[in-house]
């Protein structure tokens, strides 16, 4: 795909950028949808009613974000496809979300730790994405960033409560930190497609804020009287469609009704 960049024909180049931007938008849609789906699994399972509502809010924000990214991807595809084609008619290997987001919802500590890593990440990521020279992507980032800032406040509060609360909650948080840590590395490793789009000013370079992310996460974890995880393993592959076993199960459930009625509208 990188050889395309060398083509001299301006229209071909525009087409190539468009194709790559489409794929980038679909990836960001995948990230949002898969995490939103996991969060939606908390419905009627929260520790108390107020948390059912709060978790539902965050899930809704992510599903909404997925719809915006997919709708833009569909618009770029320009072949009559819709947001639902992206969500329901692609297979497991075509999804390119980060692995971290597809892991089963786990217990409340697992969910809070995942949100902590994601919210701090998105706070920086979306701040940068607002400056994308693709105006559609920048607009989605602007709307999403407001939501993420609220998510982060809530997640930080919960991290403190659970870290400082009881021995049991501290143990659960410690376990979650160690179980999840190895999935965070790939968030900072753009692939060839993303590097090209970074150079074109469309995509965000997450390498630039890795240190800040680490610093913020560390500050909150220490404030919560928890230890930084020392896990030295790392699992990667989401952007290449190299997923854990959990994603295909998630998609089987999510796509079941839509696929049982080809071409139907809902």
């Amino acid at each position, binding site marked *: 795909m990188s050889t395309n960049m060398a083509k001299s024909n301006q229209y071909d180049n525009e087409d190539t950028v468009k194709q790559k931007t489409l794929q980038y938008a679909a990836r960001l849609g995948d990230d949002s*949808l898969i995490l939103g*789906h996991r969060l*939606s*699994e908390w*419905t*009627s*399972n*929260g*520790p*108390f*009613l*107020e*948390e*059912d*509502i709060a978790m*539902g*809010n965050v*899930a*809704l924000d992510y*599903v*909404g974000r*997925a*719809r915006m990214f*997919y709708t833009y991807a569909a618009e770029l595809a320009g072949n009559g496809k819709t*947001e*639902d084609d992206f*969500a*329901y008619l692609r297979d497991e290997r075509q999804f390119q979300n980060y692995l971290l987001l597809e892991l089963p919802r786990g*217990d*409340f500590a697992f969910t809070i730790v995942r949100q902590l890593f994601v919210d701090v990440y998105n706070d920086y990521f979306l701040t940068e994405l607002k400056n994308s020279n693709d105006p559609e992507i920048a607009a989605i980032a602007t709307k999403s960033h407001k939501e993420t800032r609220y998510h982060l406040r809530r997640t930080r509060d919960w991290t*403190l*409560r*659970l870290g*400082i*609360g*009881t021995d*049991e*909650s501290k143990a*659960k948080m410690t376990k979650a930190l160690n179980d999840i840590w190895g999935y965070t590395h790939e968030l900072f490793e753009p692939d060839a497609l993303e590097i090209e789009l970074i150079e074109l000013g469309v995509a965000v370079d997450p390498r630039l804020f890795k240190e800040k992310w680490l610093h913020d996460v560390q500050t909150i974890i220490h404030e919560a009287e928890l230890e930084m995880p020392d896990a030295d393993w790392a699992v990667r592959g989401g952007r290449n469609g190299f997923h854990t076993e959990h994603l295909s199960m998630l998609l089987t*459930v*999510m796509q*079941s*009704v*839509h696929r049982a*009625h080809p*071409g*139907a*509208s*809902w």
Partner: protein
Amino acid sequence: MNSSLNELEQAFQAKIDAEQKIEPKDWMPAKYRQNLVRQVSQHGHSEVIGMQPEGNWITRAPSLRRKAVLLAKVQDEAGHGLYLYSATETLGTPRADLIEALQTGKAKYASIFNYPTQTWGDIGAIGWLVDGAAICNQVSLQRTSYGPYARSMIRICKEESFHQRQGYQIMVELAKGTPEQKQMAQDSLNRFYWPALMMFGPHDSKSAHSAQSMKWKIKRETNDDLRQKFIDQTVPQIEFLGLEHPDKELVWNEERGHYDSGEIDWEEFNSVINGNGHCNRQRISHHVAAHEEGLWVREAQHAYNVKMKARRASTAA
């Protein structure tokens, strides 16, 4: 003593007759309080337990738009549960007691949620029929005599009408869709129509709480009147969908200006209430499991608050 109690009761009834609201700090007969706690908490539990059959389809909603709308709807139900639990708390019953009563079976919830949601069509039928029946009841409860209950009903009604529309929209899409979709809509209508009629409770002649509740204006319209309203409003909605009406005895009665309908299967009603529904045990054990799983979170939150308070106190000292 007795005469002063009598005077209090008379003044209380006079206030109700004059359409004035009773507020939490006002004197009220113990039975009025009891009756309200029973009704409002039952209503709150219905919202909370109702999250399960609908939540069952959030992960499988067939389009992203439907997923977002259903998620928002179920989230609203949690909110309604909260308003109603809060209204019950103003009567002196804390939330922990309410939850215990639900989990031990002392308090009831709408028996319709003991029916399973088997297909996507059921999500349409629940929004349309179950929320539709609930709205008939709730609209009249906006004028209920207890202030906090009446005010929460006003807010809830606004959201419920959005819920009913989302359910009916699902049915419209199914009914005008493929033959399989239309069949799905018909099947869901067939299964949920009668249980929706049962939601209004027993006939007035057989209703244990009706007469006193009407006098105290906790209830404003009788079970049968509300049910009739629902039957009448549902007929043109079924016609618009082009579906068959599940009640084969339904006929317009010119004289009454209402539809006459077939008799509800009260044996089924009683049987499901008494534990023979598909989901009675599932609903409660799901609630208990989530509540128990959340215990460590609630304990941690409490411990955190205590620690922070102590730390603030020691810094201040």
